[in-house]
C-alpha cells in the first residue's frame, strides 16, 4: 500500500531535452504533486499536459506579480496549462503543481505555484488550471512552448498523496 506522501519518480536531465514526461502513473493515490526546478535554453513558457492530450482541452486563470504590476490572466481552450511568462535562463524557475483526484471521474483541476526571479526580472504566479477530461491521468508531460529545450540539470519529481 502506498505511503501517504511518496515519491513516484524523479528526472534530472543529463543533457538538454525538449520534454519531461512521467508515464504509467499508478492510480493508487488521491492527488499528484509535480515539482520542477529548472531553466530553459532561451526562456520559453512552460506547458503542462496530461495523457499526451495536445488538443485544446485546457484552461487556466492566473494571478501574478512581476515586481511592477499585479495582474490576472486567463487562457481558454488552449493546448496545455501554461504560465504566459518565460521560465528563467540563468536562475532556475521553481514550479509546483498539485493535481487533485487525478484518478477519479471528474474533470482534472490543478493548483500551480510559479516562482521565477532573474535578479532584475521575473514573476511570481499562482494558477488554477483545468483539463476537461474525466479519464484518469496516467501520464504528465511538461515542455516549453516553441520546442525550446530544458537545460541540463533541470529536475522534476512526481509525488503521490494518499488520503485515509
Amino acid at each position, binding site marked *: 500500500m502506498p*505511503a501517504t506522501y511518496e515519491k513516484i519518480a524523479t528526472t534530472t536531465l543529463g543533457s538538454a531535452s525538449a520534454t519531461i514526461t512521467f508515464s504509467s502513473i499508478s492510480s493508487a493515490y488521491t492527488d499528484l504533486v509535480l515539482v520542477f526546478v529548472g531553466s530553459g535554453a532561451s526562456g520559453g513558457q512552460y506547458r503542462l499536459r496530461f495523457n499526451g492530450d495536445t488538443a485544446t482541452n485546457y484552461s487556466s486563470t492566473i494571478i501574478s506579480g512581476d515586481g511592477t504590476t499585479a495582474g490576472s490572466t486567463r487562457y481558454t481552450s488552449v493546448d496545455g496549462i501554461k504560465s504566459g511568462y518565460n521560465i528563467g535562463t540563468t536562475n532556475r524557475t521553481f514550479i509546483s503543481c498539485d493535481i487533485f483526484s487525478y484518478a477519479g471521474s471528474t474533470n482534472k483541476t490543478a493548483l500551480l505555484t510559479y516562482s521565477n526571479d532573474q535578479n532584475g526580472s521575473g514573476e511570481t504566479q499562482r494558477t488554477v488550471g483545468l483539463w476537461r477530461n474525466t479519464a484518469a491521468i496516467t501520464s504528465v508531460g511538461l515542455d516549453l512552448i516553441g520546442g525550446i529545450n530544458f537545460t541540463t540539470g533541470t529536475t522534476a519529481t512526481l509525488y503521490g498523496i494518499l488520503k485515509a
Partner: protein
Amino acid sequence: MWQAELLNTVLGSLSSGVAASTSSFESIASATGTGSSGTITFSSIPSTYAALQIRMNARTDVASTAATVLLYANGDTGANYIRHNLTGNGTTVTAGASAAPASSVFTILRATGSTAPANTTGTGILDIHDYASTTKNKVFRCITGTEDNTVGQIILYSGAWLSTSAINSISLYLSSGNFTTQSTFALYGIKGA
C-alpha cells in the same frame, strides 16, 4: 506550497528486526460529500502534529458557477475570525478583507456550483500551523480556485481564528446548499522534528 521535504522516513527498527516506517506527512481522515449536507466536519483531531493540511476537491448544488466554502474551528460560530484575500479572475486583481474587528463568517475556500460545467470541481489547499498551540491565535493560509473554461478565480487567503485554544475540530460549510457526491476532503497532519 509543496511538501517535498516531508517524505517518508524510516526510524529505528523493531525488536523483530522489521524496520518501523513512520511518515512526517500522515493522513488523519477523509470525507466525501453526500449531496444532502453542506457541512463537512473533522473532529477529534489529535494534538500530536505541528501543522494540519486540508486538501479539497469540491462541487456544490449552489445555483451559481462557484460557491464560497466557510470554516469554523472547535464549533465556534462567533465573531472570532479575520481574513484577507487576493483574487484574480483572469482580468483584474482585487484585494479583500473581512469586516473589522472580527467576523463570524470565515471565507477560506472555493468550490464550483451547479451551473458550472458538469464534472468540474473547485480545489484548495489549506494549511494551519501550530494548530495545537494553547498560547497563540491560529493562523490559516490557503490557495484555492475554480476554473471551468468560461470563468475562473484563483484566490490566496490568509486568516486567523482569534483563539488560543488548540484546534480539535474543523468544519467546512456552505451558507446554503450541499456538497455533491463528487466532493472530497482530506485532512493531513504534518509532524515537527
